[in-house]
């Protein structure tokens, strides 16, 4: 025990990295929920696809990087490709599944999400035709890079993850709170019919929301691939649950809430891995989800909604 406590600062630092990634995933949930009141449970799979796209780009660039292409260019290419690909994927998911299901059975969207998750998992297996793939992150960032602060070591990859995550979050909040599209988005979230009647192009904005959220998930996938140097087709399941937990923790629909929830969850997971046992860290996260839903279903930042009779 004493030994594991001495690692606490390091675990906090690791938790920060995890938390940044969870926050990116949670944002996707929150964005879509805020606009459509829909829990896009296929979101974790989009993140998985993003990781695979990053992997694919890295393998393509492998010779170029070895020949001296700067690492940051490679990273930019990975991020851009993943964000574009996942954005497109998000738009497709919305168009092909969620839109037709929007006015049918009330259980349909979640079941549809389950179907999407399944299709994406096996589709990726089919396309990538191997179960686990190692990411050679050292091509982008030498493993030795990083800095140390006392006993805490933050590798460059982890720092980069935190930095990029914060950057994307800032860009997103600018988009949501400062632009025309953001205003349309919030209007639809408040009242879709009224927004439609006032000339907000609802379908287009909904598509854009999916593109945005999915692009963030794609970026998260690339970043995680860099830190954990491994991608596989089932990585989206746990990550999706954790992103959702983070979103609920912070109050689903709230953007600062998603950030805070992600960081809290990341740190909780990292610390519990160190202090209790790595075997059960996923169980602990799930426990957090249940407790959060029971104690404060509206989250830290969410508003409690009055049921209408």
């Amino acid at each position: 025990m004493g030994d594991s406590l001495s690692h606490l600062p390091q675990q906090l630092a690791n938790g920060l990295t995890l938390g940044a990634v969870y926050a990116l995933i949670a944002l996707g949930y929150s964005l879509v929920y805020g606009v459509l009141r829909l829990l896009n449970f296929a979101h974790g799979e989009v993140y998985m696809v993003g990781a695979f796209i990053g992997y694919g780009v890295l393998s393509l660039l492998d010779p170029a990087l070895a020949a001296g292409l700067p690492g940051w260019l490679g990273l930019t290419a990975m991020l851009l490709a993943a964000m574009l690909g996942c954005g497109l994927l998000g738009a497709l998911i919305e168009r092909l599944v969620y839109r037709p299901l929007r006015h049918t059975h009330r259980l349909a969207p979640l079941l549809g999400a389950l179907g999407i998750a399944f299709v994406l998992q096996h589709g990726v297996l089919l396309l990538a035709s191997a179960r686990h793939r190692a990411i050679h992150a050292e091509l982008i960032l030498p493993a030795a890079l990083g800095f140390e602060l006392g006993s805490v070591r933050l590798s460059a990859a982890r720092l980069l993850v935190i930095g990029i995550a914060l950057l994307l979050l800032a860009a997103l909040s600018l988009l949501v709170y400062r632009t025309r599209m953001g205003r349309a988005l919030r209007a639809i979230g408040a009242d879709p019919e009224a927004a439609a009647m006032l000339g907000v192009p609802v379908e287009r904005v909904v598509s854009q929301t999916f593109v945005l959220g999915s692009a963030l998930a794609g970026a998260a996938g690339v970043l995680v691939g860099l830190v954990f140097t491994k991608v596989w087709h089932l990585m989206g399941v746990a990550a999706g649950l954790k992103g959702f937990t983070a979103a609920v923790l912070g109050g689903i629909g709230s953007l600062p809430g998603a950030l805070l929830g992600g960081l809290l969850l990341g740190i909780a997971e990292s610390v519990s891995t160190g202090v209790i046992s790595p075997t059960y860290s996923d169980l602990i996260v799930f426990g957090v989800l249940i407790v959060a839903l029971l104690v404060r279903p509206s989250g830290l930042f969410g508003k409690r909604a009055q049921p209408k009779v």
Partner: protein
Amino acid sequence: MNTPTIGHEEWAVELEARRDWRRDRWGWLQHQARQAPSAALVGLPLALALALALLFGNDYILRVAGTACIYGVLAMGLTLVVGQAGLLDLGYVAYFGVGAYAYALLASPQLGLHTPIWLALPAAIGAAMAAGLLLGVPGLRLNDDYLGIVTLGFGQVIVLLALKLDRLALPWAGATLDLTGGPNGILGIDPPRLLGWAPATQGHWLLVLAATLLAVLALASRVVDAPLGQAWRALREDPLAAAAMGLPVTRLRLLAVSSGAAIAGLAGALFAGWQGAIFPVNLDLSLLLTLYAAILIGGLGSLPGALVGAALLAALPEILRDPALGRALVYGGGALALILWRRWPGAALLAAGGCGIAIAASLATQADVTLAGNLALVALPIVLAALPLVRRPWQRLGLQAFTLVLATFAWETRLAAEPGLARPLLLGVALIAMLIVRPHGLFGRQRVTVV
């Protein structure tokens, strides 16, 4: 999501009326199909199929029939929870797992226990019910989506436990205990032995499984007709009104979840005994998806419908194993779907183009077309999404034709080559298509939703 659908229900009524007006053979067929299949209508063919399998089937056929029975029992339990009580339970497979593992632990060399069946089976069912209640109690306060997510997470937790409880630390004994065997599962599970008789052949097993199926069907259909079933449906339709009419909502939900869990636990125990082994892979998402597809095909809430769906979903993937049969199924099914959907040109194209491509593909199997096939697979959803954007008839037809060519190409080059991945992929697509095209199932009645 929360668009009030004023006039929605009038539309449904009109639709019913319009269908009844159709006096041609097609209308009659639709009318017949719309009537939820009665137990006799479904039970007789199923019983006949079972009898034929028992009389003439080889071990393989018997196995598939047995799987259909297990799916049937599971689907009936699920349709009680989801279709009757209206609770979105995505952790249903976990109860199956708890039942299977409980039975396996009590009757296998894993812990050296060989508990007699009359003790082990109720214990397995009880364990599954306990798991259901464990999840049901906190889940009670959550509504649709949240309940779905929490139960899905619970399902994952059970799989995780099955995977990780192979090195359970026992600090007081200073040792570790291998409870679940981890990814290697539990082997050598005893078959259920009652009064000195235990099923020894696949034929025996099919008898046991079919008898269980019948018993569950009888029990469940009585419950559905009983006041309890009515109260469940009232709860599904409007929990608030149900509560205001004095129905004990909490108790009804718990009853629904634990009944479903008990049935799943029973199926799990039988499955473990039948296979002689249980692995964490048995509890993966594909079983959950299969069951949901089964109850959707049969119409949510319908017990005979669940059986039909289960039989279809047990049989169809087996057909896909054989490339020739699979081809026939995919093209035939695709054409049929297009015909049902009144896309005659598409159907004709598929019939002609599919055959052509199939011949071409079988001639040119030597070339490496993996990359092209992958590209076709990626392009397919994009083209599908683009379809509604094209308005001009001839452009539309062209794009439809292109879509079909793309689909057949992807099928021939990639999916037919890897049936192990094609089956789950098709299952997922089928589930989504089912939700969109016929959310009330092949036989179910159109329902209205008040949003």
